[in-house]
């Protein structure tokens, strides 16, 4: 059974004139690294919040359709119950840290769940190590960089050992180098811990290479759902306004001019470079 499954999910924020998401039906399998993208306002942020129950419990309004996350119907369970299965990391690192020391922040969720102290200690230390910030554990959130803050947010969610981690544009405020580090951490969690990852991102040049399940949304609906290599080659994707990785665009341009590149659409500069070396070395 899929770890996240939705059928005809539709949601209107209270007071809004039209739905933020309509008729969204997707299936995400356990252990996948899913990338969700689309222009601003396409509904990806709303969809994220459906996965842990913020929609509809926090935002009110009516959520129509069916949704099941980690086997649980989010409509019938509190957000705090979902927290044990789905972690949500938000865009702005500053507004996710509210304790006076890093490790207290990472422990926050565990404290809320009422775990005994030594168990919390173990999980906090583990999460800090997984995200590479163990040395920062006694610092205050204001003293560390945005990239480090975001890693704290990931650790805080990780400590509760969820099966799924959803990240809503986690690198928006970060510079490219910090962004890459975050993606590496997330990819590591997916590959080594088997955590299902759902990543919402604009920067496909940095992230397309991690996934083989891409979902493109536009105006509240799912437009494409499947293999990123096919989706990112399609003209319509570009027309929607998705930022196709330059490696993919260059590949298409060269292929059109007759360069004998393979039929595998590259998603990263490494892949394209590999193909170019092949094509230009041979006759």
């Amino acid at each position, binding site marked *: 059974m899929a770890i996240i499954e939705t059928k005809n999910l539709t949601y209107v924020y209270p007071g809004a004139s039209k739905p933020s998401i309509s008729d969204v039906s997707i299936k995400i399998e356990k252990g996948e690294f899913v990338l969700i993208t689309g222009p601003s306002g396409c509904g990806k942020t709303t969809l994220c*919040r459906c996965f*842990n129950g*913020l929609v509809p*419990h*926090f935002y009110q309004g009516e959520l129509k359709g069916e949704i099941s996350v980690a086997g649980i119907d989010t409509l019938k369970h*509190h*957000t*705090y*119950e979902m*927290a*044990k299965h789905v*972690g*949500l990391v*938000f865009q*702005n690192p*500053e*507004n*996710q*840290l*509210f*304790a*006076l*020391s890093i*490790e*207290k922040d990472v*422990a*926050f*969720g*565990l*404290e*809320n*769940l*009422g*775990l*005994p*102290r030594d168990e*919390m*200690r173990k999980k*906090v230390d583990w999460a800090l190590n997984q995200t590479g910030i163990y040395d920062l554990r006694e610092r*205050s*959130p*204001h003293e560390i960089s945005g990239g480090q803050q975001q890693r704290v*947010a990931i650790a*805080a*969610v990780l400590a*509760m050992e969820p099966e799924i981690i959803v990240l809503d544009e986690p690198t928006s405020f970060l510079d490219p180098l910090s962004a890459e580090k975050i993606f590496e951490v997330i990819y590591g969690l997916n590959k080594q811990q088997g955590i299902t990852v759902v990543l919402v991102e604009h920067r496909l040049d940095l992230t397309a290479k991690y996934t083989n399940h891409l979902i493109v949304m536009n105006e509240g609906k799912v437009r494409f759902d499947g293999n990123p290599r096919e989706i990112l080659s399609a003209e319509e994707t570009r027309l929607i306004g998705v930022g196709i990785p330059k490696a993919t665009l260059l590949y298409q341009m060269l292929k059109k001019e007759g360069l004998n590149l393979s039929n595998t659409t590259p998603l990263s500069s490494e892949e394209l470079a590999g193909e170019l070396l092949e094509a230009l070395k041979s006759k």
Partner: protein
Amino acid sequence: MSVFDGLKFRKVYSPIHDLDPRIKFFYVISIFVVAILFSQIIPLLFLFVLQIPFVLLARVQKQWLRSLRGAAFLAGLIFAINVATSYFTTGYVITASAIENAAALTLRFVVLVESFSVFFLTTSPDHLGLALEESRVPYEFAFAFTTAVRFVPVLAEEAQTIMDAQKARGLELEKGSLLKRIRNYVPVLIPLIVSAIRRSLELAEAMESRAWGATKKRTNLYLLKLHRGDYALLLITVGILVVSIYVRLFVPVPMISRFI
């Protein structure tokens, strides 16, 4: 930004800083009680001097003196009012005892300021928050406190950025009549408030997503344990209380003015 500097706890390491905040608070309250018990100058003077070793041990002399200087105006006011009252009520005469009484009351105020000042100068917000969490105060209050402390520097920076942004659009905050200057702060206050509201929403989302409200029996990563120093302070405080109550009940305290 200097206003907020006072709230920024200084990470100095001293035996006083390490003491359990609950015991420290008990000490401060006890000083408060003792100060109220006496209205004569000798015991109050004694109380004032008693706290100086704590200040020195905590190495916060400079800041402590600054807080006393801040209280000087109010202290002077208290003294003046008391002298004036006795002047008018005892037939336009200022007696030595009246002055001594006024001085005693002023000293009482100063003793209160100095003890609270030492408390806040030697107790980090983290420690305070922890103490609140472990006391019977509902968790929401402790959380509100630590979150507020956490975001004070953030809000201060934001206020500065907003002022810069509006100044860059020609807003002149220093010019004009008092009324104009107050109105000029509207373009600074509104973005600040809107931003604070947005921030609260994002914080709430993050809290909900981390199981806020899952159980009433919240646990704590940290535990405040009492050490030798805490027991020592506890003993000293109880000692002071006992001695003070005894003196108050059984020992007549002379007034200095009697010897003049």
